[in-house]
């Protein structure tokens, strides 16, 4: 005898079926607002409708189909009850699993509720970690290179002399470059040397949400008292304040109060202060009072160092060659770099083979294939023109002498190989040429590669350069 699958699982597949079967509007109006409550008795599950109108419509139009599906699914007849939300909540409390699952299918009751309403009130004395710092972010495990050495030096000075050295300390740079790590390292350092210090790390989005909550609960006094009483305020991704005037006003007062009291303010942002859109001028000018430093994307050596450090922390034996291979191909940011390392390690565990260059290449092949597809046609034209020492403009010119036509054909063939563009699009990028010209170029190069080793070598070298 087989056990009966959970009604929850059936309902998931049922939702999937209706989503495919009905128009989006129909699905969103009638099916999506339904909530399954199977907590009382699995043989008579309850579908909870938000109002009478939906309930009646579902009863008339969908209930028999749901029951028919259930009959096939469970190989026995199942009846569903339809009920109004208010009746159910009075009757049976929802089990935690059901309520969470259905959260996805229900419009939120209160649109102003913060997205994850699980956080505690700021300054709540019962909080286990009032600073909200992640203790794993320290200066010791922060890898330094040309890209961030100035930011790190500034951060250490601020950590050693908070409120004195540079106030505010403003760090800006692209995503995934270690800004959060650096400022949390300051917070952890300060707490380590003065456990009584009142430190608070907050993401700007959460600050915005706290302002909204304080406004709704008329609790601005508490809000102000808390933020103005801090010794160190670390505020992450301040670009989220853009266009939010009420938040900026509150922050302005908090900022002034802290700076006047020689308490340290540390800010991160994705751009230089003057370039933050929707930010008040008076705040922008204040951001420049202390020290403003940039973090740049890490250079190759630093990327290798980051990987080796990460491996060391995780007790992974990582050969430098493998680290170099990953670092060479993953160039944009530290998060992606760490993600790639995880992938290689997972693959090594899966295959039971040690971390080698070949294994890394195999593990990252999907990711690298995606990168190859991202190579632009302009990049190909420039690389090929440089390689053959001709001007990039010759790629679009009408000249047909072999000295420019051959490199142009080479660039066309490589464009076909490395980009997903159609032949007419490639032709267009080469001075508005016809797609048959592209095809001819591609065939010509294929033919030459087969007969002339030098051309074949050129082709492979160019592919290698372009793929990084």
């Amino acid at each position, binding site marked *: 005898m087989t056990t009966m699958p959970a009604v929850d699982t059936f309902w998931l*597949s049922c939702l999937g079926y209706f989503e495919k079967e009905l128009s989006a509007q129909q699905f969103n109006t009638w099916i999506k607002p339904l909530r399954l409550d199977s907590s009382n008795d699995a043989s008579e599950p309850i579908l909870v409708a938000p109002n009478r109108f939906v309930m009646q419509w579902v009863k008339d139009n969908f209930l028999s189909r749901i029951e028919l599906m259930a009959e096939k*699914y469970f190989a026995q007849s199942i009846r569903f009850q339809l009920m109004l939300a208010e009746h159910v909540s009075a009757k049976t409390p929802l089990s935690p699993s059901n*309520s969470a699952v259905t959260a996805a299918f229900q419009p939120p009751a209160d649109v102003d509720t913060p997205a*994850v309403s699980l*956080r505690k009130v700021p300054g709540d004395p019962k909080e286990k970690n009032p600073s909200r710092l992640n203790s794993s972010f320290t200066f010791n495990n922060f890898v330094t290179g040309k890209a961030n050495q100035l930011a790190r030096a500034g951060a250490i000075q601020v950590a050693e002399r908070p409120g004195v050295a540079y106030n505010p300390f403003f760090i800006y740079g692209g995503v995934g470059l270690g800004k959060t790590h650096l400022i949390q390292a300051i917070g952890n350092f300060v707490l380590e040397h003065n456990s009584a210090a009142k430190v608070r790390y907050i993401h700007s989005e959460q600050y915005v949400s706290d302002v909204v909550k304080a406004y709704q609960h008329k609790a601005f006094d508490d809000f102000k008292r808390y933020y103005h009483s801090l010794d160190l305020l670390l505020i992450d991704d301040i670009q*989220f304040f853009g266009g939010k005037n009420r938040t900026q006003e509150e922050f302005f007062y908090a900022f002034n109060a802290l700076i006047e009291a020689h308490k340290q303010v540390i800010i991160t942002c994705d751009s230089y202060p003057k370039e933050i859109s929707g930010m008040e001028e008076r705040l922008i000018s204040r951001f420049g009072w202390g020290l403003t430093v940039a973090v740049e994307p890490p250079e190759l050596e630093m990327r290798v160092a980051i990987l080796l450090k990460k491996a060391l922390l995780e007790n992974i034996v990582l050969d430098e060659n493998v680290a170099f291979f990953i670092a060479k191909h993953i160039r944009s940011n530290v998060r*992606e770099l760490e993600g790639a390392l995880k*992938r290689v390690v*997972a693959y090594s565990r899966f295959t039971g083979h040690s971390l080698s260059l070949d294994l890394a290449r195999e593990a990252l092949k999907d990711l690298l294939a995606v990168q190859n597809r991202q190579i632009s046609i302009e990049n190909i034209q420039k690389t090929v023109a440089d390689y053959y020492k001709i001007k990039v403009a010759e790629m679009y010119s009408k000249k047909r002498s072999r000295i420019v036509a051959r490199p142009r054909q080479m660039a066309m063939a490589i464009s076909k190989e490395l980009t997903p563009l159609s032949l007419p699009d490639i032709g267009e990028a080469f001075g508005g040429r016809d797609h048959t010209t592209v095809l001819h170029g591609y065939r010509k190069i294929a033919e030459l590669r087969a007969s002339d080793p030098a051309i074949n070598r050129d082709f492979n070298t160019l592919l290698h350069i372009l793929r990084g």
Partner: protein
Amino acid sequence: MKQLLLDIAPSPPPTLANFVPGRNIELLQTLSNVVAGLERERFIYLWGGAGCGRTHLLQAIAGICMRRKMNVAYFSCAPETEFIASSEPHCVTVDDVDRLNAKAQISLFNLYNHIRDEGHALLLVSGPAAPAQLRLRDDLITRLGWGLVYQVHELSDEEKIKAMKCHALGRGLDLPQEVCDYLLRHGRRDLPSLMATLDALDSFSLANQRKVTIPLVRELFQAVS
């Protein structure tokens, strides 16, 4: 005219066991490890084209967690989806992340940060492309790429044929090679559609008491169109 059950038969519940792995064996192993508590990584992003099986895998994981009475939040993304959990979740699955509008992306960004900093949940997200190719906020994209990222490879035609034959065998259906080829040439080629067609073909062949042949498939297609 005979009524066809094709329209209303739901697919069997998605599980890891009934996912045809093809080139996704490593991914399947990783997901099995995740639910068995053998994988430390809590953030997983799956990507692949339509019909590759992303939703199947997300629902399979959500289903396993639900059967264990865990607190599960399953989000099938719409532009306005808000990531609200009524209590601390154990497992959050987010399907089709690319559909989120600007506000919803911030909502997911917050949820991610919350889970990373304070929660212990598994966060399983899916999208149609690798993180770097998604048209979403950079700070969200880099977070999706921070965990384990897997491409869900669609099955090749040969693998689809193998899966169809295996499915047919389970139903006691004799499925000739030429019918497989025909279905792949003339019908929808994603696996769920192929399986649904096979189920319909099985019922149709029983109802008409005829063997499964290309003419029978043609009649079925005509009957349902």
